[in-house]
């Protein structure tokens, strides 16, 4: 992509979503936006860029922001953070919340729903044992309304089903519908979906025992990223859990988040 064209998207994304594109993200930009251009009937990405310059259609801009701000997703992405949550974090949270018998979890970049559903699948298994009678809330938010709608349906392609999802979960919790697989209602209903932009105020979101905000801040510029993390910290109970992507960190805020030893991207709220 030519530099002036790249800059148009760079400015637009920075203003609308906090995403900060460095020039090495040019290929990512083309890969994510070419399908948007096709969907909107443009002959090419260049044609869409030209049209944007002439007449910045707000609906098109929303779609562009959504396409860039939505991380690729898979069930139990990277595996280990979810194992660690189940084996180490969850027992601690259950101990500290045993009086209230309630857990509040927020997936702050839920994309197409695999992350909140992965957590729901973990928690569902414990509902018949140590979590029996507990009130569990999983709030899943994203900046893309289109993606949220898709996530809420809980329907995935065969290809999506094979990324990270243990086969016994497929067998026990999904029903095949032609080429697709539909998540059963008991799991689907455990997750509440809502639109949310990470740049907006979080004070009305309530307090959480665990927040998952994975692979989205990596595209933010440092000051924005720090700002989001500081505000997220206010919504996490002391001793609560923060999961970032495995290549992300909150090292600029050592007073707010303590790293979980040997677990990249995972933190305890100080």
């Amino acid at each position, binding site marked *: 992509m030519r530099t002036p064209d790249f800059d148009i998207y760079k400015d637009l994304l920075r203003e609308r979503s906090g995403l900060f594109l460095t020039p090495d993200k040019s290929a990512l930009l083309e890969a994510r936006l070419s399908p948007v251009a096709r969907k909107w009937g443009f002959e090419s990405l260049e044609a869409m860029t030209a049209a944007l310059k002439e007449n910045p259609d707000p609906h098109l801009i929303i779609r562009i922001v959504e396409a860039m701000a939505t991380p690729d997703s*898979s069930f139990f992405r990277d*595996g*280990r953070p979810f194992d660690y949550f189940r084996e180490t974090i969850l027992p601690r949270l259950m101990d500290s919340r045993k009086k209230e018998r309630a857990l509040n979890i927020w997936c702050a970049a839920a994309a197409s729903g695999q992350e909140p559903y992965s957590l729901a699948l973990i928690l569902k298994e414990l509902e018949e044992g140590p979590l029996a009678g507990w009130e569990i809330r999983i709030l899943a938010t994203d900046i893309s309304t289109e993606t949220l709608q898709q996530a809420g349906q809980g329907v995935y392609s*065969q*290809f999506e*089903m*094979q*990324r*990270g999802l*243990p*086969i*016994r979960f*497929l*067998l026990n919790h999904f*029903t*095949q519908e032609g080429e697709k697989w539909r998540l059963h209602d008991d799991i689907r209903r455990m997750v509440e979906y809502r639109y949310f932009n990470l740049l907006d105020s979080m004070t009305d979101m309530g307090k959480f025992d665990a927040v998952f905000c994975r692979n989205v801040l990596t595209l933010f510029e440092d000051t924005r990223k720090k700002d989001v993390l500081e505000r997220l910290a206010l919504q996490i109970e002391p001793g609560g859990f923060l999961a970032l992507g495995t290549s992300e960190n909150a090292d600029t805020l050592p007073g707010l988040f303590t790293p979980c030893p040997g677990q990249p991207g995972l933190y305890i709220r100080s």
Partner: protein
Amino acid sequence: MTKTCLIVDDSRVVRKVARRIVEDLGFACEEAENGKLALESCEKSMPSAVLLDWNMPVMDGIEFLRRLRDMKEGKSPAVIFCTVENTAGRVRQALEAGASEYIMKPFDGEIIQSKFRLAGLIE
């Protein structure tokens, strides 16, 4: 010790593609083009993992798996089906016969890696 994987598929092309992916995950690979040859390979040397097609001439994947699990040491390999069979019924049948994981073709490197991780074969 190097981990080993036996790749069982009647298509030479599929074996070649899968082999390259599995070798990149750090496994030494053997190949077999049907269940019978795969059993013979396991008798000689029991692999750490088997990537297993379902539909093959001479002996199919499910029969291979049942016989493997009856062999001495035959419980130890992780067996991952990799097949066009994509119904819940088939998946259930495979798990009941002792499969560890299940891939529905078409596959790519990321799917194989993800399933090897789920089967506890890699970190």
